[in-house]
């Protein structure tokens, strides 16, 4: 029992640490590496929630494909330094001070989310004590292709649209 909690704290620490590093790093490549670490921690949390398929798919899709795309873009655009000194000095509002108020807003958001969670009635129930886990891949496939088949087909059209859009937008001019 305590082992569950210990693993939860370990993976949660990895995830939160990685996400904080993403936000706090100067170098975009370090941000991408930190987010890979954060996603691996998140994958561990999914395993704790008895969703092993989602955990593995998270690594394959996010860490293995999407973030590699991010890494390629950062490398090809040579975006090594964040141009934080490039403030438009003539603009009256874009100063370092006022634009940092976003951090305060994020803390306010956290407070609001915490308040919303605390209004839930059944908080101390452990995850999964109410109902048994139902997570075989066979069941996932069956539900995906019967109840959610429309969303599945629409998602495939979305992916094709995304692919065509990405190729057109990033392709060379006059093509």
């Amino acid at each position, binding site marked *: 029992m305590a082992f569950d909690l210990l693993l939860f704290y370990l993976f*949660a620490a990895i995830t*939160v640490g990685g*996400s904080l590093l993403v*936000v706090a790093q100067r170098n975009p490549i370090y941000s991408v590496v930190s987010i890979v670490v954060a996603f691996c921690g998140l994958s561990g949390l999914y395993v704790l929630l008895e969703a092993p398929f989602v955990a593995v798919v998270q690594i394959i899709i996010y860490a293995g494909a*999407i973030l590699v795309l991010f890494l390629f873009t950062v490398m090809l655009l040579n975006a090594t330094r964040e141009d934080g000194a*490039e403030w438009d000095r003539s603009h009256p509002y874009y100063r370092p001070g006022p634009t940092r108020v976003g951090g305060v807003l994020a803390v306010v958001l*956290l407070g609001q989310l915490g308040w919303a969670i605390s209004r839930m009635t059944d908080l101390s129930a452990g*995850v999964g004590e109410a109902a048994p886990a139902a997570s075989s891949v066979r069941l996932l496939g069956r539900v995906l292709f019967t109840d959610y088949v429309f969303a599945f087909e629409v998602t495939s059209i979305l992916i094709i649209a995304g692919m065509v859009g990405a190729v057109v937008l990033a392709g060379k001019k006059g093509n």
Partner: protein
Amino acid sequence: MVPISYYLILSGLLFSIGTAGVFLRRNVITLLLSVEVMLNAVNLSFVAFGRQFGTVDGQIITFFVMTVAAAEAAVGLAIVIALFRHRESLSPEAFTNLKW
């Protein structure tokens, strides 16, 4: 046993960190990364709730969120590349004028 509130608080914390990233970062690629962090926070709360009620719907919605995030990351990065080609800068402040 880990109470579900722990997972939800963690999800809220990740969402706020992502939001802080979107507000504070001056580099559009890191901005997109913070959006990915927010999407993953939402995924976590979906899976936690799905497990709480014993259904697989939480995990299935996660697949759709991941797919949409992939498509959005691809198109977003293509837009960043097109913008960079024009203005040679990756700071959101360089694109504040409406004139191209």
